[in-house]
């Protein structure tokens, strides 16, 4: 389980997160929903300590990681996978080398075993046979799938998805959503998905947390979100103009 307790973060005088508290339970997929720039991605990066919060605590599997230096975060990061918004594949490495990256860094597997694992991960994301391609030869959706294969190579317990379907066509988005659900079902992965795309969010979420202006506006199941009377949430669901008012 991951717990975020009263997390605040400020950038250049702008308060991005204001006392955000969240819990990710084992095996569930939590979707953090909110407008662009409301602090969703920052929340993910704070969990991984790619950014450091100004205040608040983070507890991962009972371990308070709030004051962990970079060295102590390394073993924890091996239990986590992250799919970045722009895929963030290493553009000087082939698809195979990208997926094998963490395996070569952190395991003592033989080259044969690494190649077998790479093939398995690529097959999972339906990208078999692309091992020799460079990231520049892939489409946006393919890059996301390879990045997903790279993130799952070490069989992480937690997966974080930063806008996994943004900029993708509806069919590719559906494919990515299916992969997120498949990873949860087959690998028992607990996930946090950050998105502003409500339709995709409903496809993968077990639970929602809606962020507005750096604060959690509402946390609950899909039915609770749909049943909410808050104007912001209703506007979000309808895909209409998003009001600045809370209700």
């Amino acid at each position, binding site marked *: 389980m991951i717990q975020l307790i009263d997390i605040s973060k400020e950038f250049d005088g702008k308060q991005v997160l204001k006392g955000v508290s969240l819990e990710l339970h084992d095996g569930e997929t939590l979707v953090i929903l909110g407008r662009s720039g409301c602090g969703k991605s920052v929340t993910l990066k704070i969990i*991984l300590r*790619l950014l450091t919060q100004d205040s608040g605590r983070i507890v991962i599997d009972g371990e308070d990681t709030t004051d962990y230096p970079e060295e102590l975060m*390394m073993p924890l990061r091996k239990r986590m996978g*992250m799919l*970045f918004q722009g895929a963030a594949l*290493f*553009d000087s490495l082939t698809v195979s080398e990208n997926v094998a990256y*963490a395996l070569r860094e*952190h395991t003592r597997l033989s080259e044969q075993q690494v190649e077998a694992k790479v093939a398995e991960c690529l097959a999972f994301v339906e990208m078999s046979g692309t091992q020799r391609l460079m990231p520049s030869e892939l489409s946006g959706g393919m890059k996301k799938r390879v990045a997903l294969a790279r993130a799952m190579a070490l069989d992480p317990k937690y997966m974080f998805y930063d806008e996994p379907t943004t900029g993708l066509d509806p069919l590719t988005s559906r494919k990515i959503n299916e992969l997120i659900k498949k990873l949860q079902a087959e690998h028992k992965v607990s996930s946090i998905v950050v998105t502003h795309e409500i339709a995709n969010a409903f496809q993968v979420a077990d639970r929602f947390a809606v962020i507005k202006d750096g604060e959690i506006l509402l946390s609950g199941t899909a039915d609770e979100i749909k049943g909410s009377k808050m104007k912001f949430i209703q506007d979000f669901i309808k895909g209409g103009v998003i009001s600045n008012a809370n209700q």
Partner: protein
Amino acid sequence: MTYKTIASASGRLFREIYRFAAFHWEVLRRTVRPPYYGATVWEQMDRIGVDSLLIVMLVGFFTGFVLAFQTGYAMMRFGAKIYVGGIVAVSLVRELGPVLIAMVFAGRVGAGITAELGAMQVSEQIDAMRALATDPLRKLVLTRVLASVAMLPALVIVGDLVGIAGGLLVGVMNLGLTVSFYKSSVVNALVFNDLFSGFIKPVVFGAMISMVACYYGLTTSGGTKGVGEAVTRTVVVSSVLIFLLDAVITKLLFLIGM
């Protein structure tokens, strides 16, 4: 310029110096314990050193060539052209070789490192590396610093030798010196202190240029425009620091009698 503007600019400068010093400390701390990524260091030595060989040889050759011409022309007036070989060698080994080749290194290698790391930074590849439990300061910075410290002195040695050969060409073709005379002039002029000075400078310059390049690369922000600005900063700051450190090292060496 108002007092407030000066105060704000000074504050920014001190913050930048503090961050740069902290970056040095973080990299230095990582030299104590493995992993050192030997294969990556080797690969970087090839990219940084071997790929720079041609331009370094060109710069060395033409520096020695012009230096021999200019000193030969001046010395001929005093009938002292026999010293041309020694002057070319000492000037190249002590000063011109390390400084000029370091300038070329900053422009070619330093700019390249910043552009590469900067592009990785703005496309979240550095974050991805950290998320995959790899330390970019070890994997990207330390490897490039070690490769630069190893390769810049080697490049300077090559540049010096080619420069002395360039001087030889002028000595023989234009000044009427014989090969053996030029050679003995070079050998007699160079002493251990010259070689030490010529070796220690590129070691320091190599470390400085690679650290500056990595620092600006990893702190790049603002997309592709930011990458361009970071590269410019690397070349400007490295060039200024080359001359500054050159003056400091030269003074220190004179103080200890070298």
